[in-house]
């Protein structure tokens, strides 16, 4: 597979905002000018089942599915969903879980998907303005301030850890 394609998998269970998270991510990559493919496995998600969203971006992307063992990043919103998705991650890939976020600092518990996007964003080439623009347009405007706070909390984690 060409190395220029970045593979991201977001996993969780129905109602956690997995698909919203992948929507935002894909939109940011699209606006940054990349070829983008986004795939969803939602099957029976409304009945409490697993939900997985996959985003691939780069100069040219073929298959919409992240091949097993080739995900660069795996974002998991629900701890039970780590095991069923870990096989997607490449050996040096990065796993991100809610454990990275101090829940007390979140504006609300629901914003964990946006906070983890913030953590992810620090690894990706797209600039902060693109992310904030997609967050503003992707949700009801009344959620924007909380989402911005959650996003920046995640985005600045690494900076805090390594001042």
């Amino acid at each position, binding site marked *: *597979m*060409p190395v220029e394609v970045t593979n991201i998998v977001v*996993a969780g*269970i129905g109602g956690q905002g997995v698909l919203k998270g992948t929507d935002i991510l*894909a*939109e940011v990559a*699209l*606006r*940054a*000018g990349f*070829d*983008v*493919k*986004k*795939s*969803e*496995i939602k*099957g*029976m*998600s*409304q*009945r*409490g*089942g*697993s939900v*997985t969203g996959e985003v691939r971006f780069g100069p040219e*992307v*073929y*298959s*919409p*599915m992240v*091949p*097993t*063992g080739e995900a660069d990043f795996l974002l998991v919103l629900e701890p*039970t*969903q780590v*095991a*069923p*998705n870990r*096989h997607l991650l490449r050996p040096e890939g990065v796993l991100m879980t809610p454990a990275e976020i101090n829940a007390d600092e979140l504006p609300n518990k629901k914003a964990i998907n946006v906070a983890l996007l913030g953590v992810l964003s620090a690894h990706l080439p797209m600039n902060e303005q693109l992310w904030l623009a997609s967050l503003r347009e992707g949700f009801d405007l009344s959620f924007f301030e909380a989402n911005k706070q959650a996003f920046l909390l995640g985005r600045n984690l690494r900076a805090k850890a390594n001042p």
Partner: protein
Amino acid sequence: MKIESERKLLSGDEAIALAARHAGVALGAGYPGTPSTEILEAFAEYGGRGQWSPNEKVALEVAIGAAFGGARALCTMKHVGLNVASDPLFTAAYTGVTGALVVVTADDPGMASSQNEQDNRRYAVAAALPMLEPSSSQEAYDFVFRAIEISERWKIPVLLRVTTRVCHSYTTVVPRNVPVEVRPGDYSKDIKSRVMIPAHARPAHRRLRQKLAEMLAYNESCDLNFIVPGDRSVGVITSGISYMHVREALPTACVLKLGFTHPLPLDRIKAFVDSVDRCLVIEEGDPYLVDAIRAAGLKVEGKPESFRFGELDVPRVRRIINHDLTPEIPKPTGKPPQLCDACQYRVVFESLRRRDCIVAGDIGCYTLGVLQPFEAMDSCVCMGASLGVGLGLRHVLPEAQARRVVSVIGDSTFMHSGINGLVEMVYNPPPTGHVLVILDNATTAMTGHQEHPGTGRTLSHEPTNRVVMEDLARALGIKRVFVIEPRFGTSEFDQLLGECLDRKELSVIIARRPCILIAKQLKQYAAREEAACECDTKPALCQ
């Protein structure tokens, strides 16, 4: 980097809908079914006239009527839906159309949400219809225009065959900048083409074969098929989503990508096979392409039988290329779905389990009643089968067993094809009678809460006439018809079920309570309808 406002990220379903809108499709009809459902929903959102029919057969007939009337029509369904619609499909191939008719069949290899993984490319051969297979949302968009062009040129319905990954993957689309013009219908009488009595059908079959021959000649040089130049030591013939996996797994190979896959351009395929040292055919599902190519006397490699099952992906395509037959590691399964904790059907399934009923089930959320802790479902075959299967069991089982048989069906499935089974129940009642339970949650919950004739709202959630299932059952002559709200913490439902099982009569129990997941929407619709009533815009619906 610059923002490209022209590019959109659309699912294949949305791309089909947008193209249908841009191409001036006058009417879209279908029945919900994963992975096709979003097409008509998006078509209506884009301003098109999209409607749910009670089932796929009716939907196709509505679309055929629109196309007889000279308009452009779209009909959507999942793969198994085409089984239901196959009766009109085969003969519409004979009648042809006056306007355009595009029939979307959305196949589900791997069965993300289906009861089988049939490969509907076989229908193109069986019905003798042209078939296009897009690989991405851009192609899905473009191929709708091409399907309409082919349909109008040869006056024939065209199959647009898509699969789950094409339908549900979001990929970039640059739409055409075209003004939307919906051409109105205009009737012209054409008895010999449209009335399929044998005297008309015999020449119609010959006309159909002639059209196919002409389309084949067209397809031999059609740009819907193209060659990706590359290393000629390995050539790959492929179509649909498999093309994408092939490009990634074998980026240097020479590829013949087929977009117009029936009738197959075998001369072109032969020229390709002759131009490469080793030629592989990589396709998902049945060996459709490889069998046809081998039957033409060409030497190509297919895939091992184990790859007939499930979806292909890049790692599986690599295995096919490398002849790797080592056991595949099964993918870990996620959290399985279950009936919602607060779902009223739990009360019903608990009662069925406790009474050790033999449950002829059906297709919908409630099929999950088969899982722990209930395991209260004994069969699930196809849409509407619960009635017929339950009645068949009642007819042959010894009385003690027969009296435990119950048919269980959801409201949307009942409207789809359960009504026919109910007629059978009235016409051929088993000696022990029968019990039908209709789980009426006022929506098509499984596929994402679509409306149906029993909800009294259209695809766009606007008020319309409502088919009242209890009135229908009574009108058919069933005397014991009960409407009950299944509630936690009471034994009302269980008592009623017990009473019906004790009698050797025909009983229909409608267990009615709206799905908890749409409580908010139902309030909004009710408020909107009330406001509309005050405006006195639709007095007929306000009684």
